[in-house]
């Protein structure tokens, strides 16, 4: 079954065909059913029902009803006249997440990055560190200039921004190569399954 489905998905490389369509439909259908059951049992039953109606001897936790109410409000979309109720849970999720992540992002994407970029441009007796620091500081500076949207990229300013995009592209190139290698390992894993586990050609 695993080999049949793997080859069906790989057949997409040739062209769209009924075998691929079957595998795709099977994957989409099974995943939709799987996630529905997973969410139902792990969230609705485990978090809401079990906490509001706990086994005998344990106190009920009514705070979970707030989540249940928000979930119910989402379902009100199905009733067009009061469908606007569903905006409240959406607003809660968007606003709540923004608030919860605010400090974390300010810390990791702000302060720590600035601190790591403030480096000496001359490290006595260490040419590698000196060159590395200069590249890091100049690259960060030029990158930030590129992402400054209140000024047109013209003249010297435009040239600095262009240098910034060069730095970005070099970074993307390195990242591309790294990720492609990771994907190759996934392909090797599948080939190992087909030729080793399934056909037994690889011992």
């Amino acid at each position, binding site marked *: 079954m695993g080999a049949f489905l793997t080859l069906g998905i790989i057949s997409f490389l040739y062209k769209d065909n009924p075998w691929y369509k079957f595998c*795709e439909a099977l994957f989409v259908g099974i995943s939709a059913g799987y996630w529905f059951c997973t969410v139902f049992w792990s969230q609705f039953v485990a978090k809401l029902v079990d906490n509001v109606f706990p086994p005998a001897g344990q106190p009920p936790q009514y705070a979970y009803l707030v989540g249940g109410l928000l979930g119910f409000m989402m379902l009100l979309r199905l009733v067009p006249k009061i469908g606007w109720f569903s905006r409240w849970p959406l607003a809660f999720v968007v*606003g709540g997440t923004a608030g919860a992540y605010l400090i974390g992002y300010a810390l990791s994407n702000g302060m720590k990055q600035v601190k790591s970029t403030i480096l000496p441009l001359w490290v006595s007796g260490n040419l590698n560190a000196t060159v590395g620091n200069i590249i890091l500081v100049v690259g960060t500076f030029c990158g930030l200039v590129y992402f400054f949207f209140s000024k047109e990229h013209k003249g010297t300013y435009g040239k600095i921004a262009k240098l910034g995009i060069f730095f970005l592209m070099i970074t993307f190139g390195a*990242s591309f190569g790294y990720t492609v290698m990771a994907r190759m390992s996934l392909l090797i894993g599948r080939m190992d399954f087909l030729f080793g586990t399934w056909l037994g050609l690889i011992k």
Partner: protein
Amino acid sequence: MDNRKISLVILISAIWLTLCSQILLAQEAAPLTETKFDYHWFDTKRWNIFITLAIVFSAILWFISRAKKGKSLFIRRIAGLDAIEEAVGRATEMGKSVLYIPGIHDMNDIQTVASMIILGNVAKTIARYDIPLIVPIRQPFVVPVAEEAVRQGYLSAGRPDAFVKDNIRFISDEQFAYAAAVNGIMLRERPAANLLLGSFYAESLLLAETGASTGAIQVAGTANIHQLPFFVVACDYTLIGEELFVASAYLSREPKLLGSLKGSDLAKALIVLAIIIGTILETMGVKWFTKLFVVQ
């Protein structure tokens, strides 16, 4: 419910969760041997974050108030916006559909929020030309928002009758099932333009590569750094990182978005200034300035 009430709910939720997260962080930071936790409303060791955020938020609120008063806030036009218009124009010429992929994350990701704003504007343009707009979606939460955005777009263009609800399609929660289904749409419905704007992960190259093989004009945009290389190589134009948010602000001209963008520009200017001053002082052997950015 008007926008003011929604904003109030968002604000209260944000404040409440920020406070809760601070309590949880303080709880986690406490030694394991302690049985009684010492809660604080304010973490005095993180005063530098407080000051930074206070400056940035003040700037954002100031810029928002300026935008609301109708003062002109300049934002340079990014080339990606022309690319989106070009892609829609090409689809119109060919009489084919436009495929809009809003990423795979939920509404709690700011990239998805930005993508929905762009979707509304794309829908407005498409409604005028009477071509289908297909929006495959992975997260159930995003479906109602996308429907609303597209419906509003068609309404603004004076073509509410052209809105086809079935074209906003929930596919699957599973990442690669979603990717497989979207690839199928690309191959079977042959859209002339693919717009991939939002938060993408490992499926980015699968989608962009399939789209390229169909000959569709492709514009992509994401702030997920590790996926940008794939879009750069496989798409005709890529909105890099923050350009995605700029596109949404530029297209909507919404004062809150414009104000936020100008505020973040000011923050970037301050960061550049801090790096220049800090680097000079570090090179001279002065360390106190760098210590201002140490977070415990």
